[in-house]
């Protein structure tokens, strides 16, 4: 079984994001970038499937600038067998390479690589669109299991436990299928030194959108990006009764 894992280069989750002075987006220059945390979980899951003998090959894919090779190397250090960079200098964001464009790119690669399973993050922590996985599944006409917190592959089927609002839902999908990962699926490992060194020798293909026949012209226009209004300090209540009273009469939510 072949697994394709799309990953994204995003601002590191430790960085305090700042909006650009002209409100056109967020400050990206000289900011620490990392693999999107949900995508790390996707890589980890794919590597575990390979280690348990269920998968034979893992391909990490990213769309981004030349520097995104670093994130592919990270994926390969954790266990991806090879990497593909679809190179573009457009921001991978609303008003740049949008979720649908990403999904189309991935569709082209899926058709070329013919994986049995695509595992990807449920959303990226930069623009938080949370759409790409669903769009890709629809474009491919594949079954999808989103927000996975548990995954089992057996006899051409994948059983997914999903985190939904009311609790957990379990689905069985027939391969090929698409999974998006939630936080509790696994805890990604630290890359090992020998694997980091080996990753340097793994194959990394660089291609571009036109070679895959996709067009990145944005369909959305970003009018303004601003920081959320500062939260006002909360108050303390002295009893449950007071809390209920406030919820009823002040907030009017119950």
């Amino acid at each position: 079984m072949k697994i394709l894992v799309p990953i994204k280069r995003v601002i590191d989750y430790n960085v305090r994001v700042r909006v650009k002075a002209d409100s056109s987006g967020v400050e990206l220059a000289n900011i620490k970038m990392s693999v999107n945390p949900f995508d790390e979980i996707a890589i980890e899951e794919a590597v575990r499937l390979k280690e348990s003998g269920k998968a034979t090959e893992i391909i990490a894919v990213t769309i981004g600038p030349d520097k995104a090779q670093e994130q592919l190397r990270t994926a390969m250090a954790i266990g991806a067998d090879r990497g593909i960079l679809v190179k573009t200098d457009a921001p991978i964001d609303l008003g740049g390479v949008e979720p649908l464009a990403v999904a189309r790119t991935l569709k082209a690669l899926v058709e070329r690589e013919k994986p049995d399973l695509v595992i990807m993050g449920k959303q990226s922590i930069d623009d938080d669109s949370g759409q790409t996985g669903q769009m890709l599944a629809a474009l491919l006409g594949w079954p999808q299991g989103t927000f996975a917190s548990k995954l089992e592959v057996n006899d051409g089927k994948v059983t997914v436990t999903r985190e939904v609002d009311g609790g957990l839902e379990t689905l069985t999908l027939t391969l090929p299928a698409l999974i998006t990962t939630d936080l509790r699926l696994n805890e990604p490992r630290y890359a090992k030194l020998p694997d980091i060194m080996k990753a340097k020798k793994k194959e990394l293909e660089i291609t571009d959108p036109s070679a895959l026949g996709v067009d990145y012209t944005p369909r959305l226009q970003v009018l303004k990006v601003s920081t959320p209004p500062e939260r006002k300090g909360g108050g303390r209540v002295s009893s449950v009764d007071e809390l209920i009273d406030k919820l009823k009469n002040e907030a009017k939510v119950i």
Partner: protein
Amino acid sequence: MPVYSAPLDDIRFVLHDVLGAESLSALPGYEEFSADLADQILEEGSKICAEVLFSLNQSGDQEGCVLENGDGLTSVRTPAGFKTAYDTFRDGGWCGIACDPAYGGMGMPHVINTAMKEMICSANMSFGMYPGLSYGAFEAIHKFGDEALKTIYLPKLAEGVWSGTMCLTEPQCGTDLGLIKTRAVPQDDGSYAVTGTKIFISAGEHDLTENIIHLVLARLPDAPEGVKGISLFIVPKFLPDDMSRNAVVCGAIEHKMGIKASSTCVINLDEAKGWLIGEPHKGLRAMFAMMNDARLGVAMQGLGIAEVAYQNGLAYAKERLQMRALDGAKFPDKPADPIIVHPDVRRMILISKGFTEGARALSYWIGMELDISLKHPDADTRQAADDIVALMTPILKAYQTDMGSEVANLTVQIYGGHGYIQEHGVEQYVRDARIAQIYEGANGIQALDLVGRKMPQGYGRLLRRFFHPVQRFIEENGEDEALQDLVFPLARAFSKLQQSTAMIAQKGLKDPVEAGAASSDYLRQFALVALAWMWCRMGRVAQERISAGQGDKAFYEAKLKTARFFMQRMLPEADSRFKMAMAGAESLMSLSAEEF
């Protein structure tokens, strides 16, 4: 709770922009090394440091190590979480990062190991002791052991399933190793029976590894008196052939000021089975090979603590609101201004910054010279690099550990009373940093090494290895308008260093007391000039990048500003040290013991 994030931007600046460390890939054995690989390794390494090791630093200090009495044999329990953290560290291959690949190591350049050590010490200095000593043992066995010993011990040490110690100190002998009493008696099977008591042995007993390999200094029966009669032995806790227990036992552990999660043990050897490493009576030479590495490692402890202390002092100074700026409120909407507006607080933060960033460049440069000294195909180039490392080792060890303590203390000062109490975790840095000034040769001994051994070596050859490039730098950049305020102070301080060097060389040759009396001040003066040179080099690169419009302008501008601060407010200390060094021994030696 203190914070730490690895200063990867500054590390990359030093490695790539200032030192061009990727040039090491031209050396045999480092062909695979590249800037990308360095970045990737340090990035992943920093995650383990900041996430795994750092989170155990405070709890490790509070819990400390505990001596347990099991089945008649004592054992030491490290603080909660240390074993799991060690397993993660070891499984990641980090123990053997700079070890020879022929024996299971990763064979990465020392300059990368140097950066890794800095991050480990910032995150958890106590933890760093365990793999640090193993690496020292690896190097000593690698250099002086015979092939049979190497095959048995090196792969296990590189992998980190066994750990190492160095057993020099005894109750009656600390600095003066000539007083060692531990005895080694040859046995029929070629091994030795080693008997004696060692004290203060770091990592002497613990629960992190399957075996502990002690490198023990002891005397053979026919040994001459003093340091010329010391031999080096390898004494494993468990004998490698059948893993049976050897007669080497931890008698007690010390309760101490800092690095509480690192065990400091009394080690009793009772006819323990050992094997000779290197030649009889030449043990000190072998141990010194290990100690030179270890001294650079201790220098990184000074830098590592300074870095984490600096980060916390800075963060606190931006947050803590007290009083208004002298020239009027900077944040009128707040009840008071953050203390970073006050000149004296800025002074403390900038001294911390000026030291850590300067010392980072200095340490990594020496890490790189160490690589060249080991791997360069040309013998003269190797020798030149070896000379630089030998000369700078005592300077780095003493200066960086003195400053590690200084910066930790400045951080407590920035925190005020909140630094003195335990809650914020910065007083721990003062306690942890303190030992680095003492072990691996107390700092006074480093100063003696500099003036007594390194200075006269090869009729000043080692000194010239430093003086010539500095001279050249001054000549090449002295005309550069943009660098005037950096190169000029360097040139002045450098000429004074040449003066005090000449004085000590002359007077010291006649009267060693004169050299001894000048040594500590001279070492500090030397260190400040070395740091000034580093700041000039960093300033030059920053200036070039700004002129070319490359990279992060704000980063480079901050570099230039910090360089100027160093020249104006830290380098002048070299003048007073110069005066003290030149004052001679008379006033220091004239009081009789009764007159004190």
